[in-house]
């Protein structure tokens, strides 16, 4: 028998996955996924740091500055889209608590559709900026701006794809334990996007308007 956690003990396999190790499967998986989300948040941190540096006028290279690129009012409509989608997914979680399979699917479907609204609004804004000549390669500032916008948008796309997959899994497998922990992980992922958006809205769009 080996003493270290994670090694085999008595030929029963890794300690983490044996009964009585102190954590159930669902809690272990959600904690692991949460730690992954925090490492993802460090990616956001690095991009925010780059944006803070490249937002300086020196990096505009004669191109547009935050005041002409960031539109707080449009960003606020995006806030409404994203927060509404997060609320709808919360509704799915309340339905899950009650074991209401149809409610879970309805909540996810609404969250998905509203998230598509966010993506449409985001895409409209990016297209408008591109048409006006504000492209990522134009300056260091615009590179940092679009890196943040695209990185957050990528998360929303992943969230939408994940919701589609979960809709299928709930329909086919019902609310089994494997489906439930995936729904809980998706809750962590999706609700975390709302927290990241608070910083996006404040430090990219609002601060951009007052620089």
């Amino acid at each position, binding site marked *: 028998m080996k003493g270290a956690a994670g090694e085999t003990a008595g030929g029963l396999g890794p300690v983490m996955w044996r009964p009585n190790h102190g954590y159930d499967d669902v809690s272990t998986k959600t904690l692991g996924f949460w730690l992954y989300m925090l490492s993802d948040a460090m990616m956001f941190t690095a991009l925010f740091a780059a944006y803070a540096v490249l937002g300086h006028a020196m990096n505009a290279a004669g191109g547009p500055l935050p005041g002409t690129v960031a539109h*707080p009012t449009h960003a606020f409509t995006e806030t409404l889209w994203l927060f*509404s989608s997060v*609320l709808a997914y*919360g509704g799915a979680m309340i339905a899950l608590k009650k074991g209401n399979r149809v409610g879970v699917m309805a909540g996810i479907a609404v969250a998905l559709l509203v998230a598509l609204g966010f993506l449409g609004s985001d895409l409209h804004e990016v297209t408008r900026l591109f048409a006006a000549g504000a492209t990522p390669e134009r300056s260091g500032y615009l590179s940092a701006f679009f890196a943040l916008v695209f990185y957050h948008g990528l998360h929303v796309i992943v969230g939408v794809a994940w919701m589609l997959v979960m809709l299928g899994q709930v329909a086919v497998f019902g*609310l089994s334990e494997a489906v*439930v922990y995936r729904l809980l992980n998706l809750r962590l992922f999706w609700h975390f996007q709302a927290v990241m958006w608070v910083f996006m809205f404040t430090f990219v769009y609002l601060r951009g308007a007052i*620089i």
Partner: protein
Amino acid sequence: MGIHVHLRVFAGRDYMTESNHSTFEHPEVQLAGTGYVAAYVAGIALMGLSLMLVKDHALDPTALGIAISGIAGLAALLQCVLLLHMTLSRTQIWQTVALVLFVPLFILTIGLTSWMFHGLYQRTMLRPIAASQAMAPAPLRAPR
């Protein structure tokens, strides 16, 4: 064993041990509640307040930056508690600890990077004529 675990789950004392009979009874599933609506209302209200302050130029730029930063911090805190259930309960304690330990990294990474480059700009990067002109925001080609 199964009945034993079931009773412990309902007692709410040792619910992270073993697997539950019903997945819906898992503590992390049971965390869902009306806090989501409160988070939504508070999030919209606080972001709306920040928007209003910026649009009305209610404060000087420095004070405005501090005010909207504080509002963002409050909104993020509320969302962490109400949406992500970051509490000191036995179910969530390690998630909360991980987040609390992450926050200094978040602040230090952004703060130190900004500070270092602020000094760099002041000491080593003399502003050329082109960059001075860039201080005035260049208009976009097409009107909004």
